[in-house]
């Protein structure tokens, strides 16, 4: 049984390395100013997709991402690890979208892809932590969702069986295909890059990236369809302008404040024995500890 698998992934700012110019004045994220990585849980989702592919020869894994044109980087990364192809949904008019406008845009792209049996994605992205886009895409497509997946246990007879990891325990559920499955970080780690695939696909580019190549390299890409990544805009996916970007986002950022902590009168201590012993004695005396 060959399956059409879509993996939803996001290129995210590495939230551990955030600088001062990270936010724009309108309160949205200045993505261009930040180091970008493959959202960690989307890699967990990719691994589950690749395992389905391994078990069902002839299946294809297509990565779908929305973001800046440079998000093509994560498509290449996914292809190096075993995905077949990818699409960057990128358009100025898609910018500033909240989760609802994002899920609408991505759902439109999924409809454009057309054939799909299962859609996998990470539980949430590290830049927003909302975990909303997966379920919202499922709703937009009118298909079921299984969130907090830790392992895909079986996929047969038009159904997927999934082990879910919840705060209160573990649940095994069976859902009909097609459906959306969002994968936890506790799932298996993604396999590393495959050296042969890196060699074969390192020149895989989107049309806008191709424009920057030398004529010789352009010709090479033109001669090899597997090096041609897709780049779609809002019009390609027939997106309603009212439902995308800032206008399509019901939530608005009212304001952003820099946090200034109301400083307490702190007692400053060194790390020498005497000061630490005195502190311990004080805490014992006022029954904070002991």
């Amino acid at each position, binding site marked *: 049984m060959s399956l059409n698998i879509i993996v939803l992934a996001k290129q995210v700012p590495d939230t551990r390395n*955030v600088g001062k110019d990270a936010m724009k004045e309108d309160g949205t994220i200045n993505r261009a100013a930040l180091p970008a990585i493959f959202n960690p849980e989307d890699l967990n989702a990719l691994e589950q997709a690749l395992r389905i592919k391994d078990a069902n020869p002839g299946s294809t894994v297509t990565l779908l991402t929305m973001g800046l044109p440079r998000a093509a980087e994560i498509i290449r990364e996914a292809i190096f690890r075993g995905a077949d192809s990818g699409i960057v949904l990128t358009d100025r008019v898609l910018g500033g979208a909240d989760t609802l406008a994002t899920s609408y845009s991505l759902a439109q792209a999924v409809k454009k892809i057309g054939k799909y049996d299962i859609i996998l994605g990470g539980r949430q992205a590290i830049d927003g932590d909302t975990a909303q886009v997966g379920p919202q895409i499922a*709703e937009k497509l009118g298909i079921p969702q299984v969130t907090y997946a830790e392992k895909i246990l079986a996929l047969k007879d038009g159904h997927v069986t999934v082990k879910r990891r919840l705060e209160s325990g573990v649940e095994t*559920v069976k859902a009909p295909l097609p459906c959306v499955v969002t994968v936890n970080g506790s799932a298996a780690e993604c396999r590393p890059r495959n050296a042969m695939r890196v060699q074969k696909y390192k020149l895989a580019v989107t049309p806008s990236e191709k424009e920057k190549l030398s004529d010789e390299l352009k010709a090479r890409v033109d001669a090899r369809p597997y090096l041609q990544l897709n780049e779609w805009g809002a019009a390609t996916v027939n997106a309603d302008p009212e439902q995308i970007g800032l206008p399509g986002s019901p939530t608005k*950022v009212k304001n*952003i404040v820099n946090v200034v902590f109301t400083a307490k009168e702190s007692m400053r201590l060194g790390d020498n024995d005497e000061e630490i012993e005195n502190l311990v004695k004080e805490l014992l005396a006022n029954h904070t500890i002991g």
Partner: protein
Amino acid sequence: MSDKNNLIVYCEYEDGKVADVSLELLTKGRQLAKDLGVKLEAIVIGDKLKDIEKQILPYGADVVYKVEDKRLYPYTSNPHAAILINLFKEIKPQICLMGATCIGRDLGPRVSSCLHSGLTADCTALEIGGHKDPKTGKEYSDLLYQIRPAFGGNIVATIVNPECRPQMATVREGVMKKEVHDSNHKGEVINLQAKKYVKPEDFVVEIIDRHIEKSKINIKNSPIIVAGGYGVGSKENFALLTELANVLGAEVGASRAAVDAGFTEHERQIGQTGVTVRPKLYIACGISGQIQHIAGMQESAMIISINNDPNAPINTIADYVITGNIEDVVPKLIKYYKKNSK
């Protein structure tokens, strides 16, 4: 624009008991409803709901909707979403609050997507206030301010949904305080027919097996917490914190960076996307103090910060600041506690 529609809280329950997070949201909802001059409503969906309102009414609910059907427990996404969507089309709540739990975070997005209403995850504060759209100049009164730390650390964003209803927000357990409004509070109980709101074909996902286990880690109720950040440096150093915690009868907590670095389990994460704690003593080891972390521990009665950076942001809210390395200071704390506690 001001509306007099009500505020509704989606209540979760397990083993016949309404979840703490739902009672916390009812407490906050009571206050917001009062500010707005509207009713506080609650909805419980599930099975064997006899008398469940007795747990809800004391928190000030004016209306409790109950939808009982054995297929509605345990929770699955589509049937619960269908009930909320269809009910909300009828009663048009202006605000809907849910726990930021595995259920609320599964259900909220599905409902908000269908109703095209905005949803903000993991709010740390909720208030009512006005808003003027900077582009159109249109003014709004009595909106829900959905306040949450955003992105990377040093900012707090206030989100509003000016045009779309309901205004939806999720909040983690422990963020709001749970407080009985009036143990004799009377409210209306409305039993809704499940089959009016949910179709047989909504029951698409089948639960094959379910193991509910209480987490062994209970940092939320621990009076003392020894928490480690990325600055702890290694799993080995983190073991020092566990040792100190064991000696003090404390629990070990962690910042997100420490969890991401693999120093300790996710269940120990304190902060906006983890657990919110209010212990009597919080010992922050190698934690720089991003706002997401501070949001989850700033109400600790006493804070000790141990950090080799004398200018770590967390030091500003600490009662005691020890400037030094974890591997020097923590063993000394253990040593002098043992020496002096007898």
